Protein backbone atom coordinates (compact mmCIF):
# COMPACT_ATOMS: atom_id res chain seq x y z
CA UNK A 1 0.00 0.00 0.00
CA UNK A 2 2.80 2.34 0.82
CA UNK A 3 4.25 1.27 -2.49
CA UNK A 4 1.41 2.56 -4.54
CA UNK A 5 1.16 5.84 -2.75
CA UNK A 6 4.76 6.72 -2.30
CA UNK A 7 6.27 7.09 -5.74
CA UNK A 8 7.06 10.73 -5.23
CA UNK A 9 10.76 10.90 -4.67
CA UNK A 10 12.13 13.20 -2.03
CA UNK A 11 8.99 12.67 -0.01
CA UNK A 12 7.30 15.95 -0.93
CA UNK A 13 5.79 17.13 2.30
CA UNK A 14 8.49 16.10 4.71
CA UNK A 15 11.45 17.37 2.81
CA UNK A 16 12.57 20.89 3.46
CA UNK A 17 15.51 20.69 1.13
CA UNK A 18 14.07 18.27 -1.37
CA UNK A 19 10.77 20.00 -1.91
CA UNK A 20 11.89 22.20 -4.75
CA UNK A 21 13.40 19.22 -6.52
CA UNK A 22 10.30 17.06 -6.33
CA UNK A 23 8.18 19.35 -8.39
CA UNK A 24 10.71 20.08 -11.05
CA UNK A 25 11.90 16.99 -12.81
CA UNK A 26 8.61 15.27 -13.54
CA UNK A 27 7.23 18.14 -15.53
CA UNK A 28 10.24 19.70 -17.14
CA UNK A 29 11.84 16.90 -18.99
CA UNK A 30 13.72 19.33 -21.15
CA UNK A 31 16.26 21.09 -19.10
CA UNK A 32 17.53 24.40 -20.36
CA UNK A 33 20.88 23.27 -19.13
CA UNK A 34 20.93 20.13 -21.22
CA UNK A 35 22.95 17.20 -20.04
CA UNK A 36 26.07 18.40 -18.36
CA UNK A 37 28.31 16.44 -16.08
CA UNK A 38 25.86 17.03 -13.28
CA UNK A 39 23.11 15.20 -15.07
CA UNK A 40 23.82 11.62 -15.92
CA UNK A 41 21.35 11.23 -18.73
CA UNK A 42 19.80 14.52 -19.67
CA UNK A 43 17.90 14.90 -16.44
CA UNK A 44 16.55 18.18 -15.29
CA UNK A 45 19.12 20.12 -13.38
CA UNK A 46 16.80 20.02 -10.40
CA UNK A 47 17.50 16.35 -10.06
CA UNK A 48 20.96 17.26 -8.92
CA UNK A 49 19.66 19.46 -6.12
CA UNK A 50 19.42 16.41 -3.86
CA UNK A 51 23.01 15.47 -4.54
CA UNK A 52 24.18 18.99 -3.92
CA UNK A 53 22.28 19.16 -0.65
CA UNK A 54 23.78 15.89 0.57
CA UNK A 55 27.25 16.91 -0.61
CA UNK A 56 27.16 20.33 1.03
CA UNK A 57 25.89 19.02 4.35
CA UNK A 58 28.47 16.24 4.24
CA UNK A 59 31.24 18.77 3.74
CA UNK A 60 29.88 20.80 6.66
CA UNK A 61 29.62 17.69 8.83
CA UNK A 62 33.15 16.75 7.83
CA UNK A 63 34.48 20.15 8.83
CA UNK A 64 32.56 19.97 12.12
CA UNK A 65 34.15 16.58 12.78
CA UNK A 66 37.60 17.90 11.99
CA UNK A 67 37.10 20.82 14.38
CA UNK A 68 35.78 18.45 17.02
CA UNK A 69 38.79 16.24 16.46
CA UNK A 70 41.30 19.08 16.75
CA UNK A 71 39.65 20.24 19.97
CA UNK A 72 39.92 16.71 21.33
CA UNK A 73 43.54 16.22 20.30
CA UNK A 74 44.55 19.59 21.69
CA UNK A 75 42.88 18.59 24.92
CA UNK A 76 40.75 21.04 26.77
CA UNK A 77 38.30 21.55 29.51
CA UNK A 78 35.32 21.50 27.20
CA UNK A 79 35.28 17.73 27.49
CA UNK A 80 33.67 16.16 30.50
CA UNK A 81 35.56 13.79 32.73
CA UNK A 82 34.03 10.39 32.27
CA UNK A 83 34.38 7.66 34.85
CA UNK A 84 33.91 3.99 34.13
CA UNK A 85 32.69 3.53 30.58
CA UNK A 86 32.75 0.51 28.30
CA UNK A 87 33.82 2.66 25.36
CA UNK A 88 36.24 4.78 27.31
CA UNK A 89 39.04 6.16 25.25
CA UNK A 90 41.48 8.91 25.82
CA UNK A 91 39.98 12.25 24.76
CA UNK A 92 42.92 12.47 22.37
CA UNK A 93 42.02 9.10 20.85
CA UNK A 94 38.44 10.21 20.33
CA UNK A 95 39.86 13.38 18.82
CA UNK A 96 41.81 11.41 16.24
CA UNK A 97 38.76 9.29 15.44
CA UNK A 98 36.64 12.41 14.89
CA UNK A 99 39.38 14.02 12.84
CA UNK A 100 39.88 11.02 10.53
CA UNK A 101 36.17 10.41 10.04
CA UNK A 102 35.72 14.15 9.44
CA UNK A 103 38.35 14.16 6.71
CA UNK A 104 36.81 11.08 5.09
CA UNK A 105 33.37 12.71 5.22
CA UNK A 106 34.74 15.85 3.62
CA UNK A 107 36.29 13.86 0.77
CA UNK A 108 33.21 11.68 0.35
CA UNK A 109 31.06 14.80 0.23
CA UNK A 110 33.12 16.09 -2.64
CA UNK A 111 32.87 12.69 -4.35
CA UNK A 112 29.10 12.71 -3.93
CA UNK A 113 29.06 16.02 -5.76
CA UNK A 114 30.35 14.11 -8.77
CA UNK A 115 27.12 12.14 -8.76
CA UNK A 116 28.47 8.59 -8.77
CA UNK A 117 26.27 5.94 -7.21
CA UNK A 118 29.18 4.27 -5.43
CA UNK A 119 30.03 7.60 -3.85
CA UNK A 120 26.54 7.81 -2.38
CA UNK A 121 26.71 4.28 -0.97
CA UNK A 122 30.13 4.99 0.51
CA UNK A 123 28.78 8.24 1.89
CA UNK A 124 25.92 6.44 3.64
CA UNK A 125 28.35 4.02 5.29
CA UNK A 126 30.77 6.79 6.33
CA UNK A 127 27.99 8.97 7.69
CA UNK A 128 26.68 5.97 9.62
CA UNK A 129 30.16 5.48 11.09
CA UNK A 130 30.29 9.13 12.05
CA UNK A 131 26.93 8.84 13.83
CA UNK A 132 28.03 5.74 15.75
CA UNK A 133 31.32 7.42 16.74
CA UNK A 134 29.50 10.49 17.97
CA UNK A 135 26.97 8.38 19.85
CA UNK A 136 29.79 6.57 21.65
CA UNK A 137 31.69 9.78 22.37
CA UNK A 138 28.54 11.53 23.56
CA UNK A 139 29.30 11.38 27.30
CA UNK A 140 32.38 13.55 26.69
CA UNK A 141 30.58 16.41 24.95
CA UNK A 142 26.87 15.61 24.56
CA UNK A 143 25.75 18.68 22.66
CA UNK A 144 28.43 18.45 19.99
CA UNK A 145 27.52 14.81 19.49
CA UNK A 146 23.84 15.59 19.22
CA UNK A 147 24.49 18.24 16.59
CA UNK A 148 26.82 15.94 14.64
CA UNK A 149 24.28 13.10 14.80
CA UNK A 150 21.50 15.40 13.64
CA UNK A 151 23.59 16.56 10.69
CA UNK A 152 24.49 12.96 9.86
CA UNK A 153 20.88 11.81 9.85
CA UNK A 154 20.00 14.68 7.55
CA UNK A 155 22.83 13.63 5.22
CA UNK A 156 21.58 10.03 5.07
CA UNK A 157 18.08 11.22 4.31
CA UNK A 158 19.37 13.49 1.56
CA UNK A 159 21.50 10.71 0.06
CA UNK A 160 18.50 8.42 -0.26
CA UNK A 161 16.29 11.17 -1.61
CA UNK A 162 18.41 11.70 -4.67
CA UNK A 163 16.59 10.77 -7.85
CA UNK A 164 18.43 8.07 -9.72
CA UNK A 165 20.49 9.26 -12.64
CA UNK A 166 19.81 6.26 -14.81
CA UNK A 167 16.09 6.85 -14.56
CA UNK A 168 14.55 7.87 -17.82
CA UNK A 169 12.00 10.59 -17.54
CA UNK A 170 9.78 10.34 -20.53
Amino acid at each position, binding site marked *: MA*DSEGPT*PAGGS*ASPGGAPSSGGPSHSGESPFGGGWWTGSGDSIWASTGVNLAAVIMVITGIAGIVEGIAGIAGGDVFAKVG*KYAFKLDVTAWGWIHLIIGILLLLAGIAVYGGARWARMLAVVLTGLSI*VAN*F*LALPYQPLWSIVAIGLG*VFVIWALFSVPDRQE*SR*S
Partner: protein
Amino acid sequence: MAQHSPRPAAALGTGLASALMILTGVLGITQGIAAIANDDVYSVVGKYAFKLDVSTWGWIHLAVGALVLLTGFALFTGSILARAIGVLLAGAVLIVNFLDLPYEPYWSVIMIALNLFVIWSLFHDVGPDAA
Protein backbone atom coordinates in the same frame (compact mmCIF):
# COMPACT_ATOMS: atom_id res chain seq x y z
CA MET B 1 7.68 7.15 -12.43
CA ALA B 2 9.92 5.09 -14.61
CA GLN B 3 7.92 1.91 -14.48
CA HIS B 4 9.61 0.72 -17.64
CA SER B 5 13.21 0.58 -16.63
CA PRO B 6 14.15 -2.77 -15.16
CA ARG B 7 15.78 -2.13 -11.83
CA PRO B 8 18.01 -4.74 -10.31
CA ALA B 9 18.00 -2.77 -7.11
CA ALA B 10 14.23 -2.73 -6.82
CA ALA B 11 14.55 -4.44 -3.46
CA LEU B 12 16.24 -1.31 -2.17
CA GLY B 13 12.94 0.53 -2.16
CA THR B 14 13.20 0.84 1.58
CA GLY B 15 16.89 1.71 1.45
CA LEU B 16 16.57 4.62 3.84
CA ALA B 17 14.63 2.55 6.38
CA SER B 18 17.20 -0.25 6.10
CA ALA B 19 20.11 2.09 6.64
CA LEU B 20 18.41 3.79 9.57
CA MET B 21 17.42 0.52 11.24
CA ILE B 22 20.93 -0.90 10.87
CA LEU B 23 22.19 2.31 12.41
CA THR B 24 19.74 2.37 15.34
CA GLY B 25 20.39 -1.33 15.86
CA VAL B 26 24.11 -0.70 16.26
CA LEU B 27 23.46 2.28 18.53
CA GLY B 28 21.07 0.24 20.69
CA ILE B 29 23.64 -2.52 21.02
CA THR B 30 26.37 -0.11 22.13
CA GLN B 31 23.93 1.54 24.52
CA GLY B 32 23.22 -1.91 25.94
CA ILE B 33 26.89 -2.83 26.28
CA ALA B 34 27.61 0.40 28.15
CA ALA B 35 24.75 -0.31 30.54
CA ILE B 36 25.64 -3.96 31.10
CA ALA B 37 29.18 -2.87 31.95
CA ASN B 38 27.58 -0.69 34.65
CA ASP B 39 29.26 2.44 33.48
CA ASP B 40 29.40 5.74 35.27
CA VAL B 41 27.88 7.56 32.33
CA TYR B 42 24.50 6.48 33.61
CA SER B 43 23.12 8.65 36.33
CA VAL B 44 21.91 7.20 39.59
CA VAL B 45 18.15 7.32 39.70
CA GLY B 46 16.25 7.33 42.97
CA LYS B 47 12.68 6.21 43.35
CA TYR B 48 11.21 5.57 39.94
CA ALA B 49 8.16 3.53 38.96
CA PHE B 50 10.04 1.91 36.11
CA LYS B 51 13.26 1.51 37.99
CA LEU B 52 15.28 -1.43 36.79
CA ASP B 53 18.82 -2.38 37.37
CA VAL B 54 20.99 -0.55 34.82
CA SER B 55 22.22 -3.96 33.65
CA THR B 56 18.64 -5.05 33.04
CA TRP B 57 18.02 -1.98 30.89
CA GLY B 58 21.26 -2.82 29.15
CA TRP B 59 20.14 -6.32 28.24
CA ILE B 60 16.84 -4.94 26.97
CA HIS B 61 18.68 -2.42 24.77
CA LEU B 62 21.08 -5.09 23.55
CA ALA B 63 18.39 -7.63 22.69
CA VAL B 64 16.07 -5.16 20.99
CA GLY B 65 19.02 -3.54 19.22
CA ALA B 66 20.07 -6.89 17.78
CA LEU B 67 16.52 -7.52 16.54
CA VAL B 68 16.40 -4.05 14.97
CA LEU B 69 19.73 -4.69 13.24
CA LEU B 70 18.48 -8.00 11.79
CA THR B 71 15.22 -6.41 10.68
CA GLY B 72 17.21 -3.66 8.97
CA PHE B 73 18.96 -6.29 6.86
CA ALA B 74 15.69 -8.16 6.27
CA LEU B 75 14.24 -4.98 4.80
CA PHE B 76 16.61 -5.36 1.85
CA THR B 77 14.43 -8.26 0.69
CA GLY B 78 11.55 -5.85 0.31
CA SER B 79 9.36 -8.01 2.51
CA ILE B 80 6.16 -6.43 3.78
CA LEU B 81 6.45 -8.62 6.87
CA ALA B 82 9.87 -7.17 7.62
CA ARG B 83 8.36 -3.70 7.36
CA ALA B 84 5.54 -4.52 9.77
CA ILE B 85 8.04 -6.01 12.22
CA GLY B 86 10.21 -2.93 11.70
CA VAL B 87 7.39 -0.60 12.70
CA LEU B 88 6.62 -2.66 15.81
CA LEU B 89 10.28 -2.87 16.83
CA ALA B 90 10.96 0.81 16.24
CA GLY B 91 7.90 1.61 18.34
CA ALA B 92 9.19 -0.70 21.08
CA VAL B 93 12.64 0.90 21.02
CA LEU B 94 11.03 4.31 21.25
CA ILE B 95 9.04 3.34 24.35
CA VAL B 96 12.00 1.59 25.99
CA ASN B 97 14.09 4.72 25.52
CA PHE B 98 11.31 6.89 26.87
CA LEU B 99 11.15 4.75 30.01
CA ASP B 100 14.86 4.66 30.64
CA LEU B 101 15.46 8.27 29.68
CA PRO B 102 16.26 9.35 33.28
CA TYR B 103 19.38 7.17 33.17
CA GLU B 104 21.00 8.75 30.09
CA PRO B 105 18.73 11.48 28.70
CA TYR B 106 20.83 12.51 25.67
CA TRP B 107 21.13 9.00 24.30
CA SER B 108 17.43 8.40 24.80
CA VAL B 109 16.45 11.65 23.10
CA ILE B 110 18.58 10.73 20.10
CA MET B 111 17.15 7.22 19.95
CA ILE B 112 13.59 8.52 20.18
CA ALA B 113 14.15 10.96 17.32
CA LEU B 114 15.88 8.34 15.18
CA ASN B 115 13.13 5.80 15.71
CA LEU B 116 10.43 8.29 14.81
CA PHE B 117 12.36 8.82 11.59
CA VAL B 118 12.59 5.03 11.10
CA ILE B 119 8.83 4.66 11.43
CA TRP B 120 8.30 7.54 9.02
CA SER B 121 10.68 6.00 6.50
CA LEU B 122 9.00 2.60 6.75
CA PHE B 123 5.78 4.19 5.56
CA HIS B 124 7.48 6.13 2.76
CA ASP B 125 9.55 4.74 0.00
CA VAL B 126 12.09 7.45 -0.38
CA GLY B 127 14.46 7.93 -3.17
CA PRO B 128 15.73 6.55 -6.42
CA ASP B 129 14.64 3.00 -5.84
CA ALA B 130 11.09 3.71 -4.75
CA ALA B 131 9.10 1.22 -6.75
